[in-house]
């Protein structure tokens, strides 16, 4: 038997039927992620990164290929792969606490008090205990996403999936949430796959930046290891040589090698 990584994608292809015949979104993707690794998936809009994340989440079925998590085949969604959605997707009729509570009740055994404390603990990690009884509509975008993060990590997932989690936020809020994610990651050491199209975000947060080629039939173009030591501080890191070089490589990939779909068709 092959020695697989913790999370292993083997030959993943996704084809959607359309009116003009089948459309291949992803073509033969192989990706191996070790336990505790933080991987950023980056690529232009429409390159199929969300599709790939949904395949790992089990929300989209791969047309070909298999996803293994800890040696088991993944074929359906489950709370062991928590997703942080771009639009936070908190349930508007539940309070902050109830939203997290719903996830905890699904994933955690133990007494009421234990579950309650676990909900509070995770909301503390994102600094949202002040809003326990509030409904999502009363919160700002950044706060909602903090709760979304708390909900996901409260599920103690084996893999944490983030689908452009900060895409809808302004730059300052985004920075503070990135810091929050780095903080939490230092404590929990989750295995994370994050989709982004922000180069700085990818390099700052991730251990590896996986760059995807343009669709259709997108695949992995380059896989860059970011060797920056942790904990990372956004101001110090910005001046380091490793950071600047990693950033330059990703930019080069996105804006020269795969700048637009026409180049991709020629390649």
């Amino acid at each position, binding site marked *: 038997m092959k020695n697989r990584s913790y999370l292993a994608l083997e030959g993943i292809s996704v084809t959607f039927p359309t009116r003009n015949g089948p459309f291949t979104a992803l073509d033969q993707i192989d990706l191996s992620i070790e336990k505790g690794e933080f991987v950023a998936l980056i690529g232009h809009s429409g390159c199929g990164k969300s599709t790939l994340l949904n395949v790992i989440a089990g929300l989209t079925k791969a047309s070909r290929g298999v996803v293994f998590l800890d040696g088991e085949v993944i074929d359906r969604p489950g709370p062991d792969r928590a997703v942080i*959605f771009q639009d936070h*997707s908190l*349930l508007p009729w539940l309070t902050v606490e109830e939203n997290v509570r719903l996830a905890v009740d699904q994933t955690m055994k133990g007494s009421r008090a234990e579950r309650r404390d676990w909900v509070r603990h995770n909301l503390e990690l994102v600094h949202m205990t002040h809003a326990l009884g509030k409904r999502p509509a009363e919160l700002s975008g950044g706060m909602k996403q903090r709760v979304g993060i708390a909900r996901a990590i409260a599920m103690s997932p084996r893999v944490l999936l983030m689908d452009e989690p900060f895409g809808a936020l302004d730059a300052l809020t985004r920075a503070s949430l990135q810091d929050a994610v780095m903080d939490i990651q230092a404590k929990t050491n989750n295995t994370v796959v994050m989709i982004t199209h922000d180069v700085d975000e990818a390099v700052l947060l991730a251990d590896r930046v996986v760059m995807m080629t343009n669709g259709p039939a997108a695949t992995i173009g380059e896989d860059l290891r970011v060797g920056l030591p942790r904990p990372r501080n956004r101001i110090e890191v910005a001046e380091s040589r490793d950071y600047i070089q990693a950033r330059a490589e990703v930019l080069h990939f996105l804006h020269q090698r795969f700048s637009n779909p026409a180049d991709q068709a020629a390649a």
Partner: protein
Amino acid sequence: MLSTANAVATFSHTPETADDGESEAVVAPPSPAPAAAAPSKELPVRRLPRIVEAAGEAAATIFPTLVVIAALLAVWQFACAAPTSALPSPSRIWTESHDVIMHPLKGVTFHGIVPSVEDGDVGIAVHIVTSLRRVAIGFGLAALCGIGLGVLIGQSRLAYRALDPLFQVLRTVPPLAWLPISLAVFQQAQPSTIFLIFITAIWPVILNTAAGVQAIPPTYRNVGKVLALNPYQYFVKIMLPATVPHMFTGLRIGVGMSWLAIVAAEMVQGGTGIGFFIWDSYNSSLLTDTIVALVWIGLVGFSLDRIVGWIGRRIAHQS
């Protein structure tokens, strides 16, 4: 034109009771006519407690309606003033149907708070309650089945394709067209009336619930999937709360339609109920009684609509 003054005075009774608390608290002299209520609330409002302010706002909302009603009554009174007029004037209604207007609870005796109804000639409120009871049963069944079927066709594409065309055709059938079938099947007046209510009210409930289920944002579905909620949990925790606003739109339309249907059904079948009351008064050439019944029907229908709407808002806020 004593009768004109009489009619207007009758009606101006309502505004005074409506904003009594307000006008008396705001200004010392109680406004004799509704026209005086508007200027009276302008000046002192700023320094007054919140409740008075709220009452003032309510009065400002109601006031235009009252003016229109008063004007309509006046025109009606003027147009139908002749004793030979086919349509009775408001003042004639007041005099001829005095008993019906003033004794809606005729035939009801109270033992403590428990009412008991005598047989025979009863007041209009008793007829209304009889009709409401039928609506409660028929509409209750329609709400249950309608929400069930709505969830089914909203959730399953196959069920939608199979059933939606059927529903779309059936919902256009007027309530009374069901009556012969209903009578033939149930043989008795009571169950067939209830069936009529049911079959009238169920369509908007089904179709609105289905639309609500179909409109659940895909991200909520994904949350349900990621959390691996079982179908029952998904129904209770996500589908139901997400669909409540649509559901209550359907229920609100449904309750209005069942009120339309009950009156029609009772008119045809006779015996008891507000529909029967109308038919009976028509047969006895008591057109004024019919008009009184019309007002009752309108007010009760309006209240039903508001009650269902209010419950919907309460549930939407809580869940």
